[in-house]
């Protein structure tokens, strides 16, 4: 059986404690995943400044070249996976088999990762707002006649990673050209992507010392968050709650992303159904940037009915089917529990599952031994209904009608808002809203990410801060 080891400063370490990575459908083990004990992580962290020094010696231009080369290797080459070799097709197949994500979606996620590796210079340009990137070599640059100096805040970036959406791995990749070693805890059912990315970087010439890969327990994850100077935490509301007040930890929690159709555009709602559907369904509805809410200034029920008819056409397909749009649940009882929870909440007056009447089956279905939740549209007459503020691990959207002047306050926290409006006054209000993290003005799907824009905080600003600099001579 494949054994995926720990990587300590890039060196393989096979633990005596290993968990099984299982096939989402059969439950049969696909691989063993070495588990790092908490103290091992803490001990390795004591040497982080040494490891950072090794990375520091690489000029940023060289690291950008390595990113491009790593992308090519990631896409085309076989890479080490413990004692085995992993081809690109093996990767897609393994990723699909442990997460339940259709291979077609796995490929799309792979493309997202590759795009960031290939376009790293543009990504850094976005993160630094056009700052001369040589600043990470020299500590300062002169721009527009003014000296600008930035200081690195940490010797390592920790990342507690999810299992639901491999595309998120593109978020921590810029740490390497920014010369900050990585300390990664992979998701228990998605150890593949971060391991393969690391192997591609090493094969492309990046120093091994920059990569630490620790499959570990909850305690080990806490150790990473405590011992790395800066980190990213992906998780649900309960997982991220204890760390929200720690400025060293960048939180990537639930998204509650939304599409908003304002008064001036709502009568033309049929033109925007594609945008709404893509926002909710793309990537199997698993991402924090998938829309889980459609907020409209009028005609809500009518729009919800039309969306429901569309969503009801999306069916469960096998993971090998190129037309598959939704992922199977690796955990069947979880799928049943989510569906039951939605049904229980529908008993609270003010919400109705409109897809139910258009589907030939229930929301929960099984196909070829796999569990699926079919795309669901819930019409929420009451904007305070719990289902108007929910998101789930499948394509789910609540349609809520609200007076425009009350909408932003009622919407609450929103990772990505796509605002379909030409009303300048309303746009100004959205700009001023502290609830909205990423903003798309116009019919841009919430899932369409421009990688030269920051995501849930700017990684450059997370890792570096500007220092005052004056020089004579």
């Amino acid at each position, binding site marked *: 059986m494949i054994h995926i080891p720990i990587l300590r400063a890039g060196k393989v370490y096979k*633990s*005596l*404690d290993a968990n099984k990575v299982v096939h989402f459908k059969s439950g049969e083990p696909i691989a063993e995943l070495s*588990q790092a*004990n908490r*103290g091992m992580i*803490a001990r390795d962290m004591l040497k982080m400044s040494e490891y950072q020094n090794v990375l520091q010696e690489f000029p940023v231009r060289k690291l950008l070249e390595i990113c491009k080369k790593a992308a090519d290797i990631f896409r085309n080459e076989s890479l080490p996976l413990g004692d085995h070799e992993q081809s690109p097709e093996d990767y897609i197949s393994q990723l699909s088999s442990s997460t339940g994500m259709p291979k077609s979606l796995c490929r799309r996620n792979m493309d997202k990762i590759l795009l960031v590796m290939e376009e790293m210079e543009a990504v850094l340009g976005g993160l630094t707002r056009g700052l001369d990137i040589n600043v990470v070599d020299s500590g300062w640059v002169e721009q527009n006649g003014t000296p600008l100096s930035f200081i690195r805040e940490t010797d390592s970036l920790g990342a507690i990673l999810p299992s639901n959406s491999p595309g998120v791995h593109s978020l921590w990749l810029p740490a390497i050209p920014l010369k900050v070693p990585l300390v990664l805890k992979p998701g228990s059912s998605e150890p593949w992507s971060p391991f393969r990315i690391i192997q591609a970087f090493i094969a492309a010439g990046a120093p091994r010392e920059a990569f630490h890969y620790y499959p570990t327990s909850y305690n080990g994850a806490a150790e990473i*968050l405590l011992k790395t100077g800066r980190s990213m935490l992906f998780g649900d509301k309960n997982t991220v709650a*204890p760390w929200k007040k720690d400025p060293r930890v960048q939180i990537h929690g639930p998204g509650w992303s939304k599409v908003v159709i304002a008064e001036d555009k709502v009568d033309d709602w049929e033109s925007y159904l594609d945008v709404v559907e893509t926002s909710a369904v793309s990537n199997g509805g698993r991402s924090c940037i998938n829309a889980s809410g459609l907020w409209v200034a009028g005609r809500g029920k009518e729009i919800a009915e039309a969306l429901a008819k569309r969503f009801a056409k999306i069916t469960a397909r096998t993971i090998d089917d190129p037309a598959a749009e939704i992922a199977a649940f690796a955990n069947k009882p979880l799928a049943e529990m989510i569906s039951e929870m939605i049904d229980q909440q529908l008993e609270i007056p003010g919400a109705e599952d409109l897809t139910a009447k258009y589907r030939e089956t229930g929301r929960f279905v099984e196909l070829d031994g796999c569990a699926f939740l079919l795309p669901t549209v819930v019409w929420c007459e009451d904007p305070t209904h719990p289902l108007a503020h929910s998101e789930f691990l499948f394509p789910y959207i609540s349609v809520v009608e609200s007076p425009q002047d009350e909408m932003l306050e009622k919407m609450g926290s929103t990772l990505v808002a796509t605002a379909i409006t030409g009303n300048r006054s309303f746009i100004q209000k959205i700009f001023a809203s502290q609830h909205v993290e990423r903003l798309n003005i116009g019919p841009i799907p919430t899932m369409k990410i421009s990688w030269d824009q920051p995501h849930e905080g700017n990684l450059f600003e997370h890792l570096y801060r500007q220092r005052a600099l004056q020089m004579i001579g």
Partner: protein
Amino acid sequence: MDIFSKALTEKMKKAQSDLDAHVREIVDWHFDPATGSPFWLEYAEKLDFDPRKEIGSFDDLKILGHFEDEWLRGGPVRRWVPKGLAGKPTYVFETGGSTGVPKTRININDFQTDYEIFSDTLNDETFPKGADWLMLGPSGPRRLRLAVEHLCQHRGGICFFVDLDPRWVNKLIKRGEHQEMQQYKDHVINQALTILRAHDNIQCVFTTPKLLEALCEKINLRKAGVKGIFCGGTEMNAQFHRFAREELVPGIDFVPTYGNTLMGLAACKPFNNDNDYAITYYPPHPRAVFEIVNPDNLDEVVDYGETGRVLLTTLTKEFFVPRFPERDEGDRAAPIDLYPWDGVSNLRLLSSLQTSVVVGVY
């Protein structure tokens, strides 16, 4: 075909025979109106048989059913004191309290006896007689605090302590206060560092895996003069054992142990430098016995190497615990020459409890 050598088989038979005789002695004591505790005498009144007549061997203990830990929650605690030991100075020890209201156990000399027996398993070169000890573990109403001190004194040393309240740590974990927990851990470790640096003769340490890791981030214990570490706690597994020997404390004798307030202290199968880091514990027979049983049928002992729930029986004149289902599971380990009775390997929290029990500094 017998799986054990003839010599070991003989030792196992002798151990079983000693155990059966010990069971008869202990049952006679606890159910005798002149010597038994109020609890067991009242318990016997509800039975339709006389345990002293019906229980002639370890296997016969089954007719008493299973000890329930709920009996240990709350008072009156004196109902557990055997009449035969009335008037002797009595301690009361609490469990860690990681599963709700603490259980209490009375104690007179058992903890000293248990740790004196355990002392015989320690290497005199790495746990030198006359060396002082640091007890870096939970303080307060726990047996461990006094027991380690007694072990140290029994070996001619003086024991130093830190203040450590594991229940506070558990609360911090439940509230998700990781940073405050880290500060508390630093506070505990700083106390230990101060003691270690101030007292040259400290050569032995008791601690838990988490605290050992934290201590070793700050100090090289071998350079500080430590020769032996006696370590117990829920994070102890083969990987930690290897990590400790290879990285945390190379060159220091590392002795894993398993103990609790109800049982006493189990010894670990000696490490043979053969890269076999699996940890196998053997109880202090015949004072305590492990049975590794099917969790769904506690009367069914699993085969050697198979996983089961730990069923603990404690048999001392101070305390009688027949067939108590522990919150731990492990693999049934075969007898060895040194310990010719059943042991347990790969001990861990029972799978069904793994999400509900908070494991703090232990």
